[in-house]
């Protein structure tokens, strides 16, 4: 999907947010000069470690915080000075934030009542929302009489029913147990693809991010590290931070042999590989990133030999920590037949998928 030919729904222009720090004298830059375009109908995820400024960015978009500098444009209109209730967006909170003194029905109807929608229309639209979220028959319950998953659905329905121009999510699944989280993830995915509602989703769970997103924004210390499709981010990380944060990455030193239009020819594990790299070298040293699953262990004296230091059986796969003599690597082997486990202490040959080599500035 190409972003260029789609209309931009939300635009962040050089947004910076400073908070006074605990001491009170200085400031903390929670968000540091972020610029970002979000297209209509797109599902965009802000992903990053704890404290990197994801929530702050989301709250800036929603209007609960005012940027120290920068502008926010919604459909080409500057909404920076607008209060949150005037922005046509709805936020789904981490802990649901349902109104505990209202029934499920009234919770969902709340936004419509605020918009002064006619009574019958409210009735109709709320019932539709209940049906869509699989909550039929629960309209009279109080939030505390619902399970966690149901509460999350009510929170979602409450935001969806007002048909906002943008739906914002702040780690909506983090309070659910693992199974329910996977199930709700699927539901959000289905729902969003069906309604094509522009969404900004905050999470620190990379699987969730990859499963749901059209594009992912990886953040670190208030800055954007990389923006790209899940596959871009996973296979072609722009920085070492991104490579390290997502999936399991090994970094291997390489010797550059030649550079041409076709790519960079490097030597890695005593093999010559040409990598179609977009990295601009400018003479700086490079490092190769190899995902754990693109490494394999095989009895073959022709391959470079490694020592298996640790072998962990993880069910669907086996994770090895091997030593090449100069560094440790993580190797993941799929083993559907359940026969092939290399013992700790064994020496074995190391092979890799040459197409999976990705070069990064060292």
């Amino acid at each position, binding site marked *: 999907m190409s972003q260029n030919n789609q209309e931009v729904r939300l635009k962040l222009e050089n947004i910076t947010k400073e908070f006074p720090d605990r001491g009170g004298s200085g400031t903390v830059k929670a968000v540091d000069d972020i610029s970002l375009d979000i297209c209509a109908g797109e599902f965009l995820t802000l992903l990053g470690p704890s404290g990197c400024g994801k929530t702050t960015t989301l709250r800036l978009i929603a209007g609960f915080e005012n940027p120290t500098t920068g502008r926010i444009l919604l459909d080409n209109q500057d909404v920076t000075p607008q209060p*949150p209730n005037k922005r046509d967006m709805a936020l789904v909170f981490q*802990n649901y934030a*349902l109104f505990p003194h209202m029934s499920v029905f009234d919770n969902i109807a709340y936004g419509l009542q605020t918009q002064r929608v006619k009574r019958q229309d409210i009735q109709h639209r709320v019932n539709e929302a209940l049906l869509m979220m699989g909550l039929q028959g629960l309209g009279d319950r109080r939030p505390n009489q619902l399970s966690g998953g149901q509460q999350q659905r009510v929170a979602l329905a409450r935001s969806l029913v007002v048909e906002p121009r943008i739906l914002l999510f702040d780690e909506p699944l983090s309070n659910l147990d693992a199974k329910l989280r996977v199930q709700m993830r699927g539901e959000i995915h289905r729902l969003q693809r069906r309604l094509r509602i522009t969404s900004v989703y905050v999470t620190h769970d990379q699987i969730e991010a990859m499963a749901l997103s059209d594009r992912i924004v990886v953040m670190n210390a208030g800055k954007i590290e990389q923006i790209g499709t899940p596959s871009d981010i996973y296979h072609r990380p722009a920085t070492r931070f991104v490579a390290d944060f997502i999936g399991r990455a090994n970094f291997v030193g390489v010797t550059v042999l030649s550079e041409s239009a076709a790519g960079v020819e490097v030597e890695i594990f005593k093999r010559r590989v040409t990598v179609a790299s977009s990295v601009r070298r400018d003479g700086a040293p490079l490092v190769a990133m190899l995902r754990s699953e693109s490494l394999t262990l095989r009895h073959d004296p022709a391959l470079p030999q490694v020592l298996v230091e640790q072998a962990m059986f993880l069910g669907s796969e086996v994770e090895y920590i091997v030593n090449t003599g100069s560094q440790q690597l993580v190797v993941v082997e799929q083993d559907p037949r359940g026969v092939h486990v290399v013992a700790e202490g064994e020496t074995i040959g190391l092979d890799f998928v040459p197409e999976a080599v990705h070069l990064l500035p060292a």
Partner: protein
Amino acid sequence: MQSLRRPQAFKRFASLTQDPLLTLALVLVVLFVAITIVFPLLSMIGEGFSPKGLPLFQRYLSDPVHLSIVTNTLVMGALVGLFGTAVGFLFAFVQVRLNVPFKRFMHIVALIPVISPPFAVATAAIVLFGRSGSISRGIFGVRYDIYGLDGLTLVMSLSFFTIAYLNLSGMMRALDPALDEAATNLGANKWRIFRTVTLPMLLPGIASSFLLLFVEAVADLGNPLVLGGNYEVLSTRIYVTVIGLYDTTGAAVLSLILLVPSLTVFIVQRYWISRTSVVSVTGKPSGTPQMINHPLVRWPLFGLTIAICLLILLIYGTIIHGAFIRVPGVRYDFTLEHFDFVLNGIGAQAIQDTTLLSILATPLAGLIGMVIAYLVVRKTFAGRNLLDFSTMLGIAVPGTVIGIGYVLSFNHPTTLTLPVLGEVTLLPQLTGGRGLLGGALAIIVVFIIRSVPAALRSGTAALSQIDPAIEEASISLGADNARTFRRITLPLIRPAFLAGLIYAFARSMTTISAVVFLTTPQTKIMTQQILNEVEHGRYGNAFAYCVILIVIVMVAISIMYVTVGSTTGAERRLEGGL
């Protein structure tokens, strides 16, 4: 907050002013607090440090009579703090930790003093234990002199211990039972646990109860006026200086002297003790506290508590009984003449005026308290803590001092001389017979400022329990601040609002120390009439007033329960559905 850099502070203020209604609310409460609390206090301080006042300081502080008044005040405050906290601790401990019957009964008896008019307990104590008391003289045959420090300590401890009881029982419930269990696991016996775990954890609560009672005691006017005898304290001295000597400057100087211990103790209690509290009130106790079953602990403490309960009931029984007999303590034949005197005489107007003014003040006090709590907890703006503190002064400052401040500030129109316009009247005269609405407005305002702090505290406590995300969810769904406050915040803090209303009404009906200086021929106040009757020894009439007052307060509380709603149900579960 104060250390925010200017541009940041400005930005935050600017974000607050995005909502005109919120700005209006903020401006209104700030103006209200400034005019009704800060300004009178400043006038009083100005008067005290004026050329007329300064020599008086020197005179009072070097004169043995005045020095002994100061000592008396402090000694009385300390004794009441000590005994009141002890009784409160006993009630709380029995309630939370002892396995004994009649707990509900003891709880209700402990709450009774809250709604009692100021002179009721003192007068009943005179009737029971005084020189010709029906118990001291009638049963034991002694002519006991209850007037003075001993009587004051007894009466005030019984009147104020509820504060300590509620404070400490809340804390004891919040103590994590796991701590006790851990200590038991380590082999400690119950007494050792009490000494080494429970007591140290409760120490901040005990200290803060002591200090709260100290402030109450040194500020009290009603009891020392009736029971003091020759034992003079600052509040009574201030009263006499104004009412008897018409010397407002002298009263201002004495008020400033009284303000020193009151405010010091208040600030220590609020900003130091309550900060160092180790008890974390999570609202989610991780178990029920272990009950203490040892008979040697259980029955003596139970017996003592029941004895105190009976004493309280005896006192309130005396009030009710005394209203229906010819001469309390002397002639016991049934009569309605006291009620006749009150209802068909001058009392009718006082009852009407007091009730009407209280009814007007109550919702205002509750609402102002909740709005200030909302602003202070939820919004960031420069001067937030100052607003909170200034509001709290309404109760931290002794009533007599507030009263003097009002007389000094509002007994004449407040004017300002401007360069072009000349003299501009900012406020008309509020107090005295020629004051606005016959002085009634000033009285309502005093009712409000004396009640708002309690509403503010309960509102603040309730609000900090509510996840701000719930309000943000409402705003995110398009509701503005006003709608969010009305539809979400206020319903969620309804129990706190109700508590604020009940307190405001009870307080307004029973307050004396501030309004005693503000009553006018046009506007009469019940407590003042009660004082009048007590001073003339017409205890029967005083008791009749008290009975009527208590009935009015109880009826009003019932009405508020019905209309505002009780504390049961979903509002307790405030975490937004978790």
